[in-house]
């Protein structure tokens, strides 16, 4: 599996994503600068966590207008797998590759802690290694992770099996609608989530619950 990590100014979990990709694929991913016009021919594109362009406007809004995103959108439309984590998820909603929006956390504060999350949907290349309702623990670290969409959209997402991750009952850290932590696009090749599976892949840091996501992708895309 070949992969690429897009690097925006002030991306800061780009290295964390790249390390895990190298570990599971055996190959270093391409690190693609935001000013480039084209992502190399890869099987997976990762939009990493961070504060792209400082996030001084709405989170992800500036990044969604960057030059490289035109090609990311084009490749996503052609079916290339795209994974947006945290700031990457925000960029995906701002780019309209995923429905909904990520608002300020309900508690109005940045939240950084390990959070139990349940796998809602295993019929996806991102979660095929997990069991239905499997409980995993990923760290979250965000100030704007409060997922919002209108009821019609939420009903549709749930009806179509596109809610992939949900915060475990009573563990919602940000007020997200229906405890949603991660969603898929209609074609199921684009996923965004707020928690950080890439920071849960090393037994020294805690249970390596995030590995399943990346190993599943390798299995699906190789």
């Amino acid at each position, binding site marked *: 599996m070949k992969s690429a990590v897009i690097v925006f100014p002030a991306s*800061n979990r780009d290295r964390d994503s790249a390390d895990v990709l190298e570990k599971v694929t055996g190959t270093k991913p391409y690190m693609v600068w935001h000013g480039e016009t084209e992502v190399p021919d890869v099987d997976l594109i990762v939009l990493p966590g961070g504060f792209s362009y400082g996030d001084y406007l709405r989170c992800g809004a500036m990044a969604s207008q960057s030059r490289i995103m035109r090609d990311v959108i084009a490749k996503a439309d052609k079916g290339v797998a795209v994974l947006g984590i945290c700031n990457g998820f925000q960029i995906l909603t701002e780019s309209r590759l995923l429905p909904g929006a990520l608002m300020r956390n309900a508690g109005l504060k940045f939240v950084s802690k390990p959070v139990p999350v349940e796998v809602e949907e295993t019929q996806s290349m991102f979660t095929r290694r997990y069991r239905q309702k499997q409980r995993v623990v990923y760290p979250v670290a965000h100030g704007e992770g409060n997922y919002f969409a209108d009821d019609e959209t939420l009903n549709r997402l749930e009806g179509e099996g596109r809610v992939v991750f949900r915060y475990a009952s009573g563990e919602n850290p940000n007020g997200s609608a229906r405890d949603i932590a991660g969603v898929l696009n209609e074609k199921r090749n684009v996923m965004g989530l707020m928690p950080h599976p*890439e920071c849960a892949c090393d037994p020294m840091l805690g249970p390596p619950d995030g590995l399943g996501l990346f190993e599943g992708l390798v299995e699906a895309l190789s």
Partner: protein
Amino acid sequence: MTAITPEIVREHGLSPDEYSRIMRLLNRAPNLVELGIFSVMWSEHCSYKSTRVHLRKLPTKGGIVIQGPGENAGVIDIGDGDACIFKMESHNHPSFIEPYQGAATGVGGIMRDVFTMGARPIAMMNALRFGEPSHEKTRHLVSGVVSGIGGYGNCMGVPTVGGEVNFHRSYNGNILVNAMCVGLARTDRIFLSAAKGAGNPVVYIGSKTGRDGIHGATMASAEFNEDSEEKRPTVQVGDPFTEKLLLEACLELMATDAIIAIQDMGAAGLTSSSAEMADKGGSGIELDLDHVPQRETNMTAYDMMLSESQERMLAVLKPGREEEAEAIFKKWELDFAVIGITTDTKRLVVKHKGEIVADMPVTSLSDEAPLYERPYERRTPARLAQPRIDSTRPVLDSLRTLLASPDLCSRRWVWEQYDNSVMADTIQMPGGDAAVVRVHGTNKALAITTDVTPRYCKADPFEGAKQAVAEAWRNLTAVGATPLAVTDNLNFGNPERPETMGEIVGAIDGIGDACRALSFPVVSGNCSLYNETNGEPILPTPAIGGVGLIKDVARMATIAFKRAGDTILLIGDTEGHLGQSLYLREIETREEGAAPPVDLAAEKRNGDFVRRLIEQGRVDTVHDISDGGLIVAVAEMAMPGGIGADLSPNERGDIPFLFGEDQARYLIAAPPAEAERIMADAAKAAVPGFRLGRTGGADLILAPDKRAAVRRLREAHESWFPRYMEAGPR
């Protein structure tokens, strides 16, 4: 040109004597720009004029020290060609005036000190002191400082891994925000600030210069009064996004060999960076301010030389390397400008609009700056070790009260606002004795802690400062790290008062003694004086930031009980010292008595013994005993995993034994057979060991009829902070 009147001199914080000294050094009266330059360079904040003679007494050398005090940060060797670069610095005055920006730019400033030396920052810590919780400003200040630290550090993508938060009325009008940054570099890729050689281009990189922060250093060198709010315009505004770009761009430039010297523009901005670089390089610098990137129009030379706009660096390049460097900064969309040249005149010369606006010998700003041996009085330390207490108070109620008290309760509310998982190397999160951060891609790790117990320092500055060093050393030891070196952040009141100066001298002596005895050299530091409002000084607060090395992360200890049935051992002597204890303050509501004495030989003996057990893989559960004493430490080990402890078999259960704050002590939990071997080894090593009890169950049991559910203790421990913060307006 403005005539310099005594009034103007006073407004610049210079004494009449200091002004005469300037006249003598220049052989003429200074103009306003020059006066401004002298005022910041001779301020306490930049010149250390009250403390320098005493700071010289600190041990700053040792086998592992690559760079001691005097550079932007200290550098130590951690083996395999890796260097650890670290420093702690205060941003107290600005944080009181404008908590969010004050704290944020404090974080940004200390990060620049570390990455300007070639290191990638890998961890942030902080030591925060606020006024009493009931004070009208406290909640607002806590909220602003914590979100400011998070706002800056989180965007930078550097994990904030721990720190201290304490409350005391002496900080009501003068909070302390001390931030520490730890970075990693290769030992052969360390960048210094000495601008050696003449004819080399001086380049400006980073953000544009505005009018913010003018005279920040001077403000930080004066006391506060009711009008301090009016000083808000002297507080800088932080832009972590630009700093993140600056970090990446600097590291990219540093991968080339184009740099001769580099230094961040911190306090006193362009003035101090250019003067200090020329001074260290034994050269001169000529600046042309017309080339300085400016954010505002019509800026004067005075504005530009004194601005403390953030996220800026000054570098001296090898001639001919400007284009290569500029390309890197253009890629990162940062300003880059050649604004001057090094000379062999040993003068700082500043030009603006074709005229020379300042011209002075570089040494007049450094070696020739005033140096004071201020008069000091060493108070007789408080003697009373055992204040009178009501020995009939139920101890478990007292324990619950202490665990839920502002100074001992869980700081989860604070640290959950700091990104501590980014970089995927944080092995021990906040809440333990020391944070542990792995050296990326290796099996070794750095342990980091910040410590000081100001109430001890008030009672006895010398013993209190010794204790701060000892506790940092102990906290590193308790996770299994070999303590390597420290950075200090000396926060005190007005040094012109003999009694405050006495505290400073006593504390520096105490730090020196402890660091020498524990082979724990001081490699960097910062002094923050004049921390007082309306004549009320803060408690003396010499914060110590310690760094240690864990050679193999598989051999490490944490505080949480891990198994039922482990034997709990107490290492170290317990006399039951209640003077200045939290028990006395929180339960008996009295702040009195002597600080606990620190026996440095016992510290070393007991600590070395405990560390060896961890290194040998015999022990994985260790906690040092500090605030609140032994029973609080047991509770802190029980709460994380919800595993209780039965201490009823041991015969001591009196208040001094349970709550005394004797030093040089640790708690260990190990399976019974191993515990017996440890007791035998302790006896051989002349280390006091004591069987305290056994882990298991869901309760903390002191006697058959004295028990408390760990779950309830945890609820009490966790509830104070969020409840307090949510209770009122912010």
